[in-house]
């Protein structure tokens, strides 16, 4: 144990997990940057990073929900059921005639919406980057009206949900209800779980659209749109996954 020396500089200390003291910031990553800058303006960069981090956590959770549903799907599919009439174990998984055409159309709708969402994200990112220029005297960005990508995305997203609703109707007209067989139970369950999550994304987009009508700073809206966009892309990937599961793992 070394003796205490008031002259030992902090940089030579070894306690606290042998981590050197702060140099140009702090924390591991430059340290906590408050939601506001020292001059009182909101720190949008820090807020965006935080919101994206939150989104990663949310995506992890949603993934766990679908992973567990998938494992239930696989397990239930392979279960033998005792058949009293033949005294033998049989598979009762059953079959479902999926409305292929509708589902493919819905998939195209959702993938297109992902593209328009990306366009909306890039558009608002560009605007947010240019926004500080407005504060310079003599500089005007003009009243540039861009294509309403966000609104188009909402319409396409709602179109997907309506399309899924029709797909359910088609399933019912073909005689496949939620309790018809385990396969049909999972078709309804997985599509409903995905639709519910997508509806959450639509609410976020509507929120972003409403804020664009109010005269709020574009940087704040950019955060909502950015996070909603990544979530939306995740929803598209998730749908492809669900569709593939229902189509190929029957």
């Amino acid at each position: 144990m070394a003796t205490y020396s008031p002259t030992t500089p902090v940089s030579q200390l070894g306690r606290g997990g042998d981590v050197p003291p702060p140099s140009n910031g702090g924390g591991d990553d430059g340290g906590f940057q408050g939601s506001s800058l020292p001059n009182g303006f909101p720190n949008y960069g820090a807020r965006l990073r935080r919101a994206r981090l939150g989104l990663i956590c949310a995506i992890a959770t949603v993934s766990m929900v679908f992973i567990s549903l998938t494992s239930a799907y696989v397990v239930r599919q392979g279960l033998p059921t005792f058949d009293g009439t033949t005294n033998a174990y049989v598979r009762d998984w059953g079959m479902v005639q999926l409305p292929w055409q509708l589902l493919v159309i819905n998939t195209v709708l959702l993938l297109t919406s992902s593209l328009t969402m990306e366009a909306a994200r890039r558009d608002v990112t560009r605007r947010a980057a240019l926004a500080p220029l407005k504060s310079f005297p003599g500089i005007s960005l003009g009243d540039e009206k861009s294509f309403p990508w966000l609104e188009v995305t909402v319409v396409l997203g709602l179109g997907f949900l309506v399309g899924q609703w029709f797909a359910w109707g088609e399933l019912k007209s073909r005689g496949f209800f939620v309790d018809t067989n385990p396969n049909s139970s999972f078709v309804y369950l997985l599509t409903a779980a995905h639709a519910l999550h997508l509806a959450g994304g639509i609410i976020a987009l509507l929120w972003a659209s409403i804020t664009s009508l109010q005269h709020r700073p574009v940087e704040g809206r950019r955060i909502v749109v950015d996070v909603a966009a990544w979530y939306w892309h995740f929803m598209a990937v998730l749908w492809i996954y669900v569709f593939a599961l229902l189509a190929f793992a029957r």
Partner: protein
Amino acid sequence: MATSATVHAHAPQGFIRKYIFSLDHKVIGIQYFFLALTAVFVGMFLSLLMRIHLLWPGVSLPLVGEIKPEMYLSLLTMHGTIMVFFVLTTAPQGGFGNYFLPIQIGAPDMAFPVLNMLSFWTTFVAFVTIIAAFFVTGGAPLHGWTGYPPLSAIQQAGPGEGLGADLWITSIAIFCLASLMGALNFLTTTLDMRAKGMTMMRMPLTVWSWFITAILGLLAFGVLLSAGILLLMDRNLGTSFYVPLVVVNGQIMGHKGGSPLLWQHLFWFFGHPEVYIAILPGMGVTSQILSTFSRKPIFGYKAMVYAMLAIGFFGFMVWGHHMFMSGMSPYSAFAFSLLTMCIGVPSAIKTFNWLGTMWKGHIRFQTPMLYAIGFVSLFVSGGLSGPFLAQPVLDIQLHDTYFVVGHFHLIMGVAAIFGMFAATYYWVPKMFGRMMNETWGRIHFFITLAGTYAIFMPMHYLGIAGGTRRYSQYTEVAYLQKLMPIHAFMTYAAIITIAAQFIFVINLFWSIFKGPKASDNPWEATTLEWTTATPPPHDNFNGVTPVVHHGPYEYGVPGAARDYVMQTDPSTVPSH
């Protein structure tokens, strides 16, 4: 997402914004704390009813009348569910974590304050929903906190399995959503809002424990949510995920082909990490308190962090050890058994590090310290029976006996509760600005420690002797009747221990209002919450963002003016 510091610079004024729908993590932490306190008294009352019924089966009790066997099952279901979700998960993480995580890392609030408020009120709705199950037709469900189908999946299976069981599942689903929102917030806050100088390896072990708990919660609660939705569908939509062909009262139910084992897998994939969700924050606070009151740095800080990570990691791989009796390939059982015993290694590392921290320390035996030592004691006593139960051959004998009840109550129940008591006695001065009464604190500690051992230790003998759990009466079976004196002893111990908890509650409320004023740093501790005012201002540090220069456990610094160095102290300390 109102994360703006400008929002936080001015505390809200109106009563509703300030105390009910507050965005302040400290108010939300206190709300969680009192919700858990309410829940623990409900849960404890239910356990008292059960213990009294076991000893005097025919007696008519006030409020509830004579306890019938089905009501006994309702009591044990609700006791377990309320305790696991609304006490063990809510208080350590939602309560103390919410209050102290932002302060300990030097942040003005949680990353997403609105989400934080939402997660508390969602938890509250979940609590109201589960309590409502008592008051509907048929009463509360009978299926135990583990909710195994087919019992839990068929409405006609018993008196509480109608609306009561639906409310039970709905409550848990809502609770899952609340916990997921909370976990998301904890993770983002810890990763992104640490003050300058607060590197990951300078975080107090409490922060590490809340962080790892949040990871477990984020990955585990989604699985329970899915499992619960499947169960609700089986109950109400006629699907057969979990239910095979079942005959109830001579009537064939509409289900066929489902597997109760599927539920067990999904449930325990959540259920085992849940055990660590309950105990990890207790480990964190114990480390914090043992170091502070021994006036020594924590022994093996890095080892403590890695041990907690290892416990969290292995926690996801051992769920099968709950199902040895459910029918399992011997090879799977072997793997689950081996992985379960692996958890003994990081647990032992933690235990020896706690002992090493106290070794040759200048120990201050104040109430928080007593409870922290009590935690270590219970962690060892409850933990040592774990490797026994991890053996499939032994588990087949001991499964569904009181041995298991004794094991998990000691380690998951009482040890975690001791962590909460330690945290309460340690942090109430900071939270409410008043010291708790030391004498009554000690009396409460010694009665509770002796009492919990007296209740739960005999359960091990009971279990080895074949004493089955979940039976409402032991009077009809000769060999079980011989065990009644042990039951009598446990019931008397439970009555005394439960009575002693009123000492705690009176001490808590008396101290909050009338206790001697606490200084900013009454325990001479080093972490950031002790650098700010008592109680902390609305934005935690009065507009100043702290800068961290040291690790969290700089105690017993030789030659220094004081025997500790605050984390924010810019002065130099020796590299010993």
